[in-house]
């Protein structure tokens, strides 16, 4: 059984009096341990698809199972819980909390899950940060870090909750080529460690990092 299975997803937005059909029936399957890229130009619906796959949004119709859970009927609090437990997000703009230290940023995920002592959260956060070579940076604020370091902190934050799937949105978009290459290398290592990654990008050079690519255009799978 695939880890992630979406069937005939549609998404319709209402913009004023006009219905915008962002997704027009999309099927996606990702197996555990896969590294998949979702590609498409802007306006293709790839962001919408990522939001639905990441449980930030719900599809207008269609079925979606993630790690054995039917999430297409979930809303609000239940969806927040699925995001917390099964999805790790990495954003183009890192989205670290500027006022929290590096380790506090990583601890946030576990904080929202609850059930972990502060000591336990810190221990897990530090273990991951060490793995990404950030052991000197525990107590720094994000603005004291380079772009590549920030993105690695964000990856640690996404992984600390041991999610079923890592959802990555244009991870190198805000980085220079050297830092971008390092971040992509980090993803390769994470993938080699057994994690499932879904990467959304419009950049073919980034997409070729993945095992396979899904192309989207006009709200449909193109190839």
């Amino acid at each position, binding site marked *: 059984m695939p880890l992630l299975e979406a069937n005939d997803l549609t998404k319709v937005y209402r913009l004023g009096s006009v219905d915008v059909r962002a997704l027009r029936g999309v099927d996606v399957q990702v197996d555990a341990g896969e590294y998949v890229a979702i590609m498409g130009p802007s306006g293709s619906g790839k962001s919408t698809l990522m939001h639905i796959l990441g449980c*930030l*949004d719900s599809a207008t119709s269609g079925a979606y199972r993630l790690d054995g859970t039917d999430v297409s009927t979930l809303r609000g*609090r239940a969806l927040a819980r699925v995001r*917390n*437990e099964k999805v790790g997000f990495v954003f183009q703009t890192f*989205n670290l909390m500027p006022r929290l230290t590096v380790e506090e940023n990583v601890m946030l995920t576990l904080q*929202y899950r609850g059930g972990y002592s502060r000591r336990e959260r810190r221990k897990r956060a530090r273990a991951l940060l060490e793995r990404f070579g950030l052991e000197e940076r525990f107590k720094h604020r994000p603005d004291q870090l380079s772009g590549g370091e920030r993105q690695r902190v964000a990856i640690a934050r996404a992984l600390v909750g041991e999610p079923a799937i890592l959802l990555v949105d244009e991870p190198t978009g805000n980085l220079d080529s050297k830092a971008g290459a390092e971040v992509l290398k980090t993803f390769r290592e994470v993938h080699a460690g057994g994690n499932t990654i879904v990467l959304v990008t419009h950049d073919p050079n980034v997409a070729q990092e993945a095992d396979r690519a899904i192309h989207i255009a006009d709200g449909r799978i193109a190839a």
Partner: protein
Amino acid sequence: MNLFESLMVGLDEARRHLGQTLLSLLGLILGTASIVTVLALFGGQTKQTQDYIAQVGGFGTVIVRDREQSQQPTARELASDRLTYGDAAYLKDRATTLSAVAPGWFDQLPYRVGDVNFTGPVIGTTPDYAVINDIRPMVGRYLSDLDVRRQSRVMVLGWKYADSLFAGRPERALGQLVTLAGKNYRVVGVLEREEFYFAVWSGNALEYRNERAYIPITTAFTQYTGDDERLTFLTLKATSPTGARAAESQVSAMLHMLHGVEDFDITPSGAGSDEDAQFFLLFNFIFLVVGVVSLFAGGIVIANILLASVVERVREFGTRMALGASGAQIFAQVVAQVVVVAALGGVLGLGLGSALTGTVAHFMGMPAAVTGFIAGVALATSLSVGFLAGLYPAFRAATLSPVDALRYG
């Protein structure tokens, strides 16, 4: 995220934007300070009024006064003997609600000692009067039952009159003769000086008690009224401090029965402080209005600034939601932050209010104290204002759509 962590985040936010935080709290601080001051001063005044009443005889003292005859008196009114010495005796025997009864006769008479002379009040009464009004002699004694029975020509002088008549040596008055409207009286006692100040600008509220002399009521009747035993007033003491009301109604009923008409007025004692009380009430009211308005304005300012900060941090909330924060958790975070800030405002307001209270109390010479209760009220008020101000911004943050929030900016 537990509550403590939310509070710590809130405190951290406040620390990092100290200037903005203090500005946003200004209304809250002023409002809290104002309310602290009002409560402290009000507490001080209440205590002072109680002290005053205690000093003039305490709660449970009741005064009956002869009411002036109406322009066209009815037959019943004309038939009444009015307030008499007999009424006093009757009440003393029959009124179960009373522990002491002092009949009173009052007149303005000329005083003379050697070359010193002036006209002033004289009160004819019985020993009970001293008990009821808590009068204490500085030297000598008060009137005795024997004085009353013998209609003795003795007097007890108020401190000020003894001072005036005996050239600034009031204690020298003891044993001397004072002429009252041509009759000589031996001074058997000089009273302690009585003082009470409601505020530095007001005079001695008890000075009138220093400017009088007491003679046995029987002496007053034989010397000045031609044995007409009518009283000017009756001073009564209820059996307990809280029994004044019951005493009033019993006395009223008994006197009405004796007189056949209501030709008397009954008032509780301590009414002399009314004017001051009115003034302070107005004073308190103004402060209270200022406080409530400040708190209201303060709440709106906080809500506004918080709303702006929520908008500023939309992407942060979006990210938190992506990490798995539920709407309730976001809501709690925002409310916790504003509550921390409001608590800070409450503490600062309490400090400012205490300083203000101290200043006002010092310059107005009034007792006032910021008690634990007042501090509690002040903190609870500012926390409530903060909480209420935080509800709407928190609701806005909690109901953001994660997708829109992440896209924002």
